[in-house]
């Protein structure tokens, strides 16, 4: 029963009812990331206001519950925050995912994304969780030119 701790209710909820899915206009940058080992893919767009507020994170893709739920949670956390705030969440999320299950997550920073803590114990699945988040970081960098 190890994996079921990975499939937290919140992850399954996001997987079954993804938030903010679908590509939308307008956007500043669009990226396409793939996980070559499993074929999961995500196309992601960001729209940032002049003041640095993230107006929209829209995405489309295919993949396992972990990769799709992670994209949905990312959308919720990043949209409406600032570039700086959201990048600190990305950083904490990456630290958690790469921590082999040894990292104590900062719930205040991560919010709902803390539900992915169990994934860090499954090295083969870490890339699934990070796929959309790395795409987001990439898209932000491109949008900032």
């Amino acid at each position, binding site marked *: *029963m*190890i994996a079921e701790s*990975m*499939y937290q209710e919140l992850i399954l909820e996001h997987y079954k009812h993804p938030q903010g899915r679908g590509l939308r206009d307008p956007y500043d940058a669009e990226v396409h990331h793939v996980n070559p080992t499993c074929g999961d893919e995500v196309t992601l767009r960001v729209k940032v206001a002049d003041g640095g507020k993230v107006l929209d994170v829209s995405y489309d893709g295919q993949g*396992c*519950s972990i990769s799709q739920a992670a994209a949905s949670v990312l959308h919720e956390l990043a949209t409406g925050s600032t570039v700086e705030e959201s990048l600190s969440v990305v950083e904490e999320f990456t630290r958690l995912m790469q921590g082999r299950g040894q990292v104590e997550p900062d719930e205040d920073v991560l919010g709902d994304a803390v539900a992915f803590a169990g994934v860090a114990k499954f090295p083969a699945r870490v890339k699934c969780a990070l796929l959309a988040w790395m795409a987001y970081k990439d898209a932000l960098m491109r949008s900032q030119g």
Partner: protein
Amino acid sequence: MSAPGFDVERIRKDFPVLARELPGGRPLVYLDSGNSSQKPAQVIETMRDHLTWHYGNVGRALHVLGSESTEAYEAARDKIAAFVKAPSRDEIVFTKNASEALNLVAYAFGNPVGEDERFRIGPGDEIVISEMEHHSNIVPWQLLAQRTGATLRWFPVTDEGRLDVEGLEELVNDRTKIVSITHQSNVLGTVNSVSPILARAREVGALMMLDASQSVPHQPVDVTELGVDFVAFTGHKMVGPSGIGVLWGRRELLDAMPPFLGGGEMIEAVWMDRSTYAPVPHKFEAGTPPIVEAIGLGAAADYLTAVGMDQIKAHEKELVAYALEALPEVPGLRIIGPRTPIARGGTISFTLEGIHPHDVGQILDDVYGIAVRVGHHCARPLHLRFGIPATTRASFYLYNTTAEIDALVRGLHHVQKVFG
């Protein structure tokens, strides 16, 4: 209902890992032999014994250990030659794996070091593969086409997962230099009928190669009876170790081919500006080979022969027939490949509607200890052809039981519950 004399419970005792308990007290249900098979004590002990008491380098050392190693290594070649009924032991080339065996042949083409007409290739010439190939029987030929300007073509696959040979006459034609297809698909389980394609290849003067990685472990394979020119297979899928593969080729062709890798042991004489080469098979075995792995593979061939390849084939046929009946009970399950146990092996790939194979595999493993493979199984073009990114694959071998298939079906029902 097993074949007479075939006792799966006795066979299971030969494979120590099958009695292993996984964390959380789960028993191991290993349904991933198409990926890599488990090893019997006979293979493990042979390798341990050699490493402990007989190990030396082969082909060059004069001392006792060197000659014992050489003898054991060459005896392994004899065993493999007998296992696939090769007319001559010199036709067995040890490689690192099946991929290397396929590359070895691909690099013989269009190589200025070779002079034989049959391996000359350039713009206007064609190479024929199929849509159901493993990447290792696609990429070497793509690279050959890129190097030489030749054209790569392929047989399509039918909706049922069979090779579509309707266009055979046009596809294999006077421009074809080589046809290289899989003997048994690692995704669909389909066993391809070789003779009509071979007959056409012979008609147009093309060579023919088989990727037999998935057939040699599971059914009696007689290279003479098959009648093709080259056969590639690998040790780790046939209860042998990883790191050792085999290329069988017709002597006369191997003699005509240029060397593949250069180095120690593959030479006859070396000057600063040129070399002459050792006779086959050594011409293709540069450097210190995987000695203990080859010896382990010889032990694997002995083991499989003692059980009986006909018996193994019959046992797997029973398992696959059972699974083809049982699996469709799972709602939303779609089998990718032939749904009848005819001309197919014990490999079944499937999708579960709305549930990604990674999630299927994770729940099966973590809740039930069932090891399956998920993903595109190194056959991405085949998955694209069926319009799916990935499948879950269960593959059976001599040590699997119908009870394990029942466990898989139970596991899949549970997966449905979690994600449904």
